[in-house]
């Protein structure tokens, strides 16, 4: 009799630290991605849920896949080093009609060129950008700073200690990039330019 009781107690103790089942984890992950106001990384999810990163990774991927399969109005995607729920491109016209939003003011050609140089050459200084573009980029840089697409990256330790610039997290979000390695390599553009 005493033996039986012991066994039951052990079972109870084991139950207390039973791992959460996958459906439960997936539920939690979905809710957390929804609530986070910025793309949330696998690491942050794992920390909040106190689970292994690898496990969370597979749960998120499974969840993103299920959204994909369902083909509803929403998607879970990887952006700026994290996961985010957003609408699908297919419904953008309806969404735009609701938000009465026009495609947000786009960047000028000068700003786009400057941003391309900064993205590929970061950290990069104003004189270095001038060297590549052949034209002053001051107002473009100011616009990019104001739009938070670029950030300062400290002074360069050369004569005059010029300020260096690099791209921001907003840059990744704005251009739908997972991270900087998601940018196509600059050499890839070589084939496109004049023969």
């Amino acid at each position, binding site marked *: 009799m005493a033996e039986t009781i012991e066994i039951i107690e052990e079972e109870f103790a084991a139950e207390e630290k039973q791992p959460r089942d996958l459906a439960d984890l997936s539920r939690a992950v979905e809710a957390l991605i929804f609530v986070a106001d910025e793309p949330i990384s696998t690491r942050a999810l794992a920390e909040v849920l106190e689970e292994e990163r690898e496990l969370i990774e597979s749960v998120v991927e499974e969840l993103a896949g299920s959204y994909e399969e369902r083909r509803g109005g929403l998607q879970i995607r990887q952006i700026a080093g994290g996961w*985010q*729920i*957003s609408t699908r491109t297919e419904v953008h016209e309806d969404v735009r009609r609701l938000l009465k939003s026009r*495609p947000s003011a786009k960047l000028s050609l000068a700003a786009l*060129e400057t941003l*391309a140089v900064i993205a590929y050459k970061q950290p990069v200084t104003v004189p270095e950008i*001038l060297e590549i573009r*052949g034209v002053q980029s001051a107002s473009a840089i100011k616009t990019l700073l104001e739009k938070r697409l670029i950030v300062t990256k400290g002074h360069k330790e050369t004569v005059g200690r010029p300020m260096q610039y690099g791209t921001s997290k907003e840059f990744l979000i704005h251009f739908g990039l997972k991270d900087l390695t998601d940018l*196509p390599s600059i050499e890839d553009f070589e084939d496109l*330019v004049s023969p």
Partner: protein
Amino acid sequence: MLAEQEQYSFDFHKETAEIVAESHDELKVKIGEFAGPLDLLLYLIRQEQANIFDIPIARITHEYLNYIRMMKRLDIAVAADFLVMAAQLIEIKSKMLLPRDPMAAEDEEIEDPRKELVDRLLEYEKFKAAAEMLYERSTIEHAVFPRGTIETDEHNAEVNATVFDILTVFQKILARHKDEVKMEIHREEISLADMIRNLRTRIFAAGELNVAEFFESLETKRELVTAFVAVLEIVRTESVKLLQRKTFADIILKAENSG
């Protein structure tokens, strides 16, 4: 519908600058501006269907200068960088006209004066292609929307900051501060008439007034100037005289009828 859309959707390809020949020597810039001298050069080279590795420098320079002249005629400010490039083109052109040094060895490689320019153009063109890629990516991204605000966001109505924000915020505070100081000065500004009235009241109330002390009680330069004029004025027009009881002593304003 189409026209309406065009108003706010920037098209990378359509808004790229272009020169359209209206008649033989009347050129016209169609839309926008070239992003820089290299952008213009690439356009001219493509227009001439020239090989970028063998740029017909005389012809391209001619076209380039034409464009600059046209901009000036249209009263469009030509950025200094365009002029710098014009000078470089002319320099390359003249170098190419120089006869080969007869003393140089037959097999000696002479560097093409155009080489540096070609390298810059090729490098620039890569980034121009990258800019186009960014443009296309952002167009796709504009069809994707994040969720609307939810309750928890409201507890978090805060701004994300960068170093640039810190500096801008600091400058704004300084500017605000300056405005406040200016406003105070403005409030305390006093007219000459008021200053004379004030001075008169003080002199006749006490019978005399120490000029140095009076000046010290004032705060701004402008008030001091007004006070100085007021002193001269009151001495000239009223029964008040300036006196100094001994050399180097304080100057006193004294009402004459009070003895």
